[in-house]
Each structure stands twice: as C-alpha cells, then as structure tokens.
C-alpha cells in the first residue's frame, strides 16, 4: 500500500494531460449547470454600464484577437448584450491589434442580427466601430481627451466611412461625450487611469485575462477602476447577472466555457492533492 502511495507522485505526465483533456471536453458533451457567485468587481462593471445616461456613449476599447479570444471575447459579448438591451449607444475602438475590429464587429453583429433583431438596430446610429489605431496608447488617450478628439484620431471608421457622416458620431466628438470606458485586452493598459481617469474622472472598467487580474485588484480596491471582468469567470458572472433566472439565455463564451474551466481546475487540484499524498508517503518511507 505504501509503495502504491509513493508511486502516486511519479505518475507519467501524459496521464495528467489526458485527464485534463477529458475533464475539459466532457462538459461539452453533457450539459452541466453550476451555481455562480457574483464577485464585487463584476458587479461594479454591471452597475456602471447600467447607469449610463441616454445622452452619453460608452467607449469599448476591444484590443484582442484570436490569441486571447477565449478570455476576452466573452467580456465584450456580455457588455454589448447589456448595452443593446438598455439601448445604450456605444463606440468600439482598438489599439495596436490589427485584427481586433473584425472580432468585435462579429460579436456585435451576432447579437444585433440574433437576439435583438426585432429592435432593428442600425450601424452608425446605435454603434460605431472606429477600427484600429497603431500608436502609443497614451498618445491615443490624450488625443481622445482633446476637443473633437475622436474625430481627429479616427477620421474614418472601420468600414472606411468618414466619421462626420455617421449620425452617432455627430454627437459623440470627444471624451466629454463618453460616459465610461470598458478596456478589454489581455493586459489592459494602466495608462487609462493615468491619462483619462485621473485628470477627467471618467469611469473605467477593465476586462483582462485571469492571470493578469492580480495586477489590477489594487485599482479595484482603491476605486480607480469601477470594476473588472476577470477572464472567463468574469463574463460568466456578468451573464448570470443579465439573466439571473434563465440559464439557457446565457450564451456568451464565458458561460459556455466556465464549466469546462471548472472541471480542468478540479483535475489540477486533484493532481496536486495526489502528488502530496505520494510526497507524504515517501516521507513516511524515509522515516521507516
């Protein structure tokens, strides 16, 4: 028996990979629902987006592509869902990630042509995608804060249309017309706080990868950011707040991935526990 326990710390890593693979793929075959706890940082984002007044717009800086789609896509999907439900107008931008606009555009169009088809939302009136800018982020932020800064920084939108021709952009000209900024990328830039929140007080929320979140919790506790969506969990929690009683309506990528993520974590935790059982058994053998 002791030998068996000692061998538990020498399991071939390929068995570990196999169990992780099986745990992550099993929930796709069998639908499992688990209760979610809504964290304060996710609630902060929800409440900030909910309070947007009708004469202001929300700026979503969606700077991610396929590399971090697993974590970031859900974070924009749930916020777009919320804004479209409330009728809040929004502008989408991207910084230094050339393929980002098409990913966010696909997410918006899936909602506009799907769930909100009967509301007949029109591009240019309900939302505008201003495309990507390749420049140092603080320069973009400073430009947006200037008078008519959005028009100067983005003379054309993602589709090549001059922004002056878009109805939404006639009233959304610079930072004073923006109610809040939701910055979603693998590692959101802290320059949003230094160049936008600090001087102008604009509420900022982040959507970041899970591993990066420890960097930003200090901003949540100090109140510099109103909230944060942390990886897959953040978008799943937000979805749960949008549809508290209807689990089947939660269609964001975060809601679909949270259970496989949970199972994967469980496998890792079990691997750690098993490894430690083997380690203690080995210690016991050494004492003998």
């Amino acid at each position, binding site marked *: 028996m002791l030998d068996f326990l000692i061998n538990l*710390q020498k*399991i071939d*890593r390929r068995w*570990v*990979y196999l169990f*992780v693979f099986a745990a*992550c793929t099993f929930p796709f075959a069998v639908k499992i629902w*688990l*209760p*979610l*706890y809504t964290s*304060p940082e996710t609630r902060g984002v929800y409440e900030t987006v909910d309070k947007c007044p009708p004469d202001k717009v929300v700026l979503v800086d969606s700077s991610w592509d*396929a*590399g971090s789609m697993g974590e970031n896509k859900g974070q924009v999907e749930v916020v777009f869902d919320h804004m479209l439900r409330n009728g809040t107008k929004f502008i989408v931008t991207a910084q230094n990630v*050339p*393929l980002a606009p098409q990913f966010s555009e696909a997410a918006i169009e899936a909602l506009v042509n799907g769930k909100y088809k009967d509301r007949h939302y029109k591009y*240019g009136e309900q939302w505008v995608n201003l495309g990507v800018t390749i420049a140092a982020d603080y*320069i973009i932020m*400073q430009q947006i*804060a*200037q*008078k*008519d800064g959005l028009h100067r920084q983005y*003379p*054309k939108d993602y*589709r*090549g*249309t*001059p922004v002056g*021709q*878009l109805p939404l952009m006639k009233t959304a000209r610079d930072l*004073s017309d923006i109610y809040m900024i939701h910055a979603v990328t693998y590692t959101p830039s802290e320059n949003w706080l230094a160049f936008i929140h600090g*001087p*102008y*007080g604009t509420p900022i929320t982040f959507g970041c990868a*899970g591993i990066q*979140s*420890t*960097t930003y*919790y*200090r901003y*949540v*506790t100090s109140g510099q950011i109103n909230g944060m969506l*942390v990886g897959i*969990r953040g978008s799943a929690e937000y979805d749960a707040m949008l549809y508290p009683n209807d689990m089947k309506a939660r269609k964001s990528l975060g809601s679909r991935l*949270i*259970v496989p*993520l*949970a199972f*994967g*974590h*469980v*496998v*890792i*935790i079990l*691997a*750690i526990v098993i*490894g*430690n059982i083997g*380690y203690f058994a080995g210690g016991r053998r050494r004492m003998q």
Partner: protein
Amino acid sequence: MWKKRLIATVTFIAGLYFFLEYVVPPMVPARTRQGVIQSVRSAPMPKVAKRWSDKSGVVEVEERTVVRQRIDARLVTRTVTVPNRPGQVVRREGEQAGLEEVRLKDVRAADRGFFLSGRERRTRGVVLEVTRDRVDVGVLGGVSTIRMAYQRIETTLSIPIASEREVTRTTKGDTPERVTPDKLKPGDTVTFKWRPQKGKTGTVSKVEGGKVLVSFFPTVIVPYGRLVAFRTRSTGAVESAAAESLEAGELVRIGPTTYLSRMLASVNNFLTVLGAMAWGMGLFSLWLVHSMNIRRRRPEWYLGVIVFVAIGFGAVAGYGFGNEEVLWARNLNDVVFEHMLLPMGSTVFSLLAFYMASAAYRSFKAKSSEAILMMVSALIIMLGQIPVGMWLTEWLGHYKYVDALQLPKISQWILYGPSSAAVKGMWFGMMLGAIAVGLRFWLSLERGAFFDREM
C-alpha cells in the same frame, strides 16, 4: 573608444530630452498668463495661394491664410484658498443670465462668479481647483489682450469631368469602387491614387462648369516660437487647446512653448523607425543560420528550405493585407493569417493548460511551511474562481456567522487584501529599481559588456 563616446553622448542627449520633457512645464512658467477669455477676435490676413496643374487639366490650389487672433481675457492676479466646509453657500454665474446660489461642494473647476468669503465677498473670481477639503479661487483682475497667430491651409482640387483618371470613391455603406470623375456627385468621399495627391482623401463639393471640385480637410499649423494655450475643463483637468478652438468663457493658460512636449510625437516616431530598421538584422540572422545548414547539408537541412519558402510566401501574402483591389492577394492573406497562423497561435496558447497541470502536479509539494501556505492559498483561490467552490460551500450561506467562510468570499479576501498588498510592495520596489537602472544607463555608469569605461 570614439564609438563608445558617441554612444554615450547620444544616450545622454536622448535621456536628457525625456527627463526634461517630464519635469519642465510645456509653457515657460514666468511668462504664462492664466485667465478667463472675454472675447476672441480673428483677423485673417490676405491668402497666399499656391497653384499646381498638370497636362490633363487637373488643377490644385492651396491657400494659406495667417490668422491673427486677439484674445481679451481677465487675468488671474492671485489665488485664494477657500476651505470646503459643509453647507457653505456661494453664488456663481448660472446657465441662464444672472447669478445662482449653489453649495460650495457642488462648485466645479472653471466656474465663475462672486464668492462669499469674508473680505473677498465682492471679488469676481474663477474656480481653479476643487478637492474634498478646499476650493482654490483665482481672483480676476482687469482685461488684458493676448495676441496669437496660426496658419490655416485649405486645398481644393479641380478635375475635368472628361478626365479618364480614376479615383476611389468610398461613400457611406458602400464598398470602395474605382470611378471616373463623370460619375462623381457632391458629397462623395474620394481617395486619390495618383501623384501628387496620392493617399489624400477629400469630399466632392461641387460639380459645375465641366469640372469636379474636391475639397480637403483644412489643416492648421501653429508655427514654432509662438504662444500655445491650455484649457481647464470643468473636471479640473488641463488639456492642450488649439488656437482656433478658443471660445469666450473658457479658463485658459497661454504662454510661450518650451518646445519639449511638442516634439514628443516626433521623437517617438524616431524610436519606431529605429525598431523597424532592426527587422533587417533579424532576417539576416535567420538567413545566416539556415543557409549554413543547407550548404553543409546538416541533419534536417530541408527544414531550412521550408523556412525560406515560408518567408517568401508570407511576404507575398502580406501584400494582400487591407488590399481591396487585388483580390487574389487578399484571399491569400486571409488563408495564411486567419486560417493558418491564428489557429496555430491558439494551439500553442492551449499548450499552457497542459503544461500548467503537469507543473502544478510536480512542484506543489508541502516541503516547507511557506510551500504549505502557498499551496493552501492557491487551492482556495482556484476553487473560489470556479463554480465548484460555490457548489461546495453554498450551504454555509444559510448560517449567520460562517457565511464569510464560503470559498469564493475567502478567495476574494485573499485577492483584495494580502495579494494586493504584496503586489503593491513588489511594484514599488521594482519601479525604484527601474529608476536606478535607467539612471545608470543614462549617465553611462553601467558596467558590464556595454560600457567598459566612462565617457
């Protein structure tokens, strides 16, 4: 030796620029004037026109106008600090004519009016800064005149309708298309592919007299050596204000520029160019290694051939990036980047999940008290981040004093408390270390392979 001195000199000058740009204000402090604008009068000087034409009848006219502005402003003569006491009422100029009474805590920066403050009761002031404990009020004196100038450049292009030269029309909602001038109508947005207007975008303003008139977005230039203006917004933030956008009622600071901030974008562009030049070095290194492998027929030399074929293929595919006109190149770009490179990148990223599992299994052993602490907190946070943690401890929520022991709540406490504190401490040390390293490099005090001796 002279090479090292040259590098050290260039490093010092570059570092000095960034150091001065950070500590020197954008305007000369002693000659900066702050006040509230009463009126702005602009006097455009006669236009200076530059004309260009070609054999096909296309005519471009560029008109430069120097606009002299006369800004009358009440300048701030001194600053008074008013403690922000609860319930204190003051009067300020309202949105309609006249004064309105407001509580001091509702006052915003750039508000104007009379302020109740003992001896300053009848003094006209402007709010400079509002904080929780105080309001800084600038006492306004008499009207002074400040003269500023800028140059406005307006360009129009006249194209004969019968011209065969195509332009790219991008009108709202449509895909870009190449059209001849006879198909253009007022309001169309056009982009040019032929020199010297190549890359410029304009709007068709008129079609008359056998010509299509296209106007370009006006450009404004503030010549070096002139005054620059900064505007204070109601949030208290200070932003750069273009001369032609100044309006009556704004709280501004005007003074001679110190040039440093205006050069920042150009200096950053230089760094970008320097980085781009280095790409050639990387490709050279790649060529060196793989060509040697091929020439000497080392094991797996054919992989070097594949590298070169892939580089050429990628370069050709890159031609299609954003290229709406050459369809095959665009399709090739889509195939290579979206259907090959991106999925491969995602695949590599997904390796992390497996590597993390094997690394955690191998290394998280309770070998010491610190290791036990790390392991236990890692387990709590991992369980708290996933619904399983809630599923396991949901029952604790029914009891009054132990609901805080639910795994998600403990996880949240660890992240908000000890973890944040540790992160702040680490960042603090690292940033100070970064200042020291930067200082050593700037002053050429670094030792090692780069700098053997001082300047």
